[in-house]
């Protein structure tokens, strides 16, 4: 009986010692990548759905989550290639950004230059009046021909 109790105690102790694997720890990991989504007036797209697609696997996201309060969505890529991030605020606004990773370093593609907003407004207004002006001109011309 005594031997049995000692044996059980030894087994218990060994099992308890081996059970430390159920614990959980966390360490800092460097080398992440991410995107920041903002509206055109600079306001961050906060707490919106974000999906991450690995290189060559555009059919199913490998990670889903939400942007943070600054509109950022971060991830840690484990392979090189083009990683695609889509962010959707659920109200019809969505953006997709491709990140080219080469040796864990994001190779920034040159962004297409956007026209400054004030130039865009002036150009847009000129085009609007131009388009409708041409329409009126064509209408007049056509009605003039019909009248002859």
């Amino acid at each position: 009986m005594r031997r049995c109790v000692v044996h059980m105690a030894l087994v218990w102790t060994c099992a308890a010692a081996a059970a430390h694997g159920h614990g959980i720890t966390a360490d800092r990991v460097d080398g992440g990548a991410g995107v920041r989504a903002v509206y055109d007036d600079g306001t961050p797209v906060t707490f919106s759905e974000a999906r991450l697609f690995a290189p060559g696997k555009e059919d199913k996201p490998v990670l889903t989550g939400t942007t943070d309060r600054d509109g950022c969505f971060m991830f840690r890529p484990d392979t090189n290639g083009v990683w695609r991030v889509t962010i959707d605020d659920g109200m019809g606004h969505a953006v997709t950004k491709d990140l080219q990773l080469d040796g864990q370093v994001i190779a920034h593609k040159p962004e297409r230059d956007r026209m400054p907003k004030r130039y865009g407004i002036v150009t847009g207004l000129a085009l609007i009046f131009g388009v409708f002006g041409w329409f009126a001109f064509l209408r007049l011309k056509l009605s003039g021909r019909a009248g002859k």
Partner: protein
Amino acid sequence: MHISEGVLSGPVLASGAVLAAVGIGVGLRRMSVASTPRTAMLSAVFFVGSLIHIPFGPSNVHLILNGIAGILLGWTVFPALAVALFLQALMFQFGGLTVLGVNTVNMALPGVVAYYLFRLVFGIARRPGIVFGLAAILGALTVLLSGLMLTAALALGGRAFLGVAVGIVVAHVPVMIADGLVTGAAALFILKVRPDLLEPSRPEVPT
């Protein structure tokens, strides 16, 4: 209120494009040479008004002003807003070219509804206070209708209608108020300086 590229499915985009084409066709047929400057002016107002943003909660909303455009233009609001939306997509990446049809229908169709409702009531009562209140309500109503149509388009793409609808309507409450006040003030001003523009007896677009 602009739906971005890649959000909607192909059939929804195609349906929107067809409906927008029909609306633009009807609008162009009714747009005379005399009414072209007014159409261009309201297209420009919509183009610039959409750039005025109001941060609201997790999203971001902007003035729409499709109510006043609809009240003054009727069906011609379709080509007016289509041109403005096309240029916004081209220059500011608002919405997109593939969703141009859906966005045009979402913005312009409530404007047409506002036009007929305004004509209906204005024919009966035209005191300044009533005109202001009516235009303000219709300005807010067009934003609400646009929001519901946006929700319906998103729901057709597989999203839960109710959840999205509540989010969009709540997010656009400030826009409804702002659009309503601007529309009411504009209608009041027009009543004083050019009341003939609001006359229900006038042809939809004078020739």
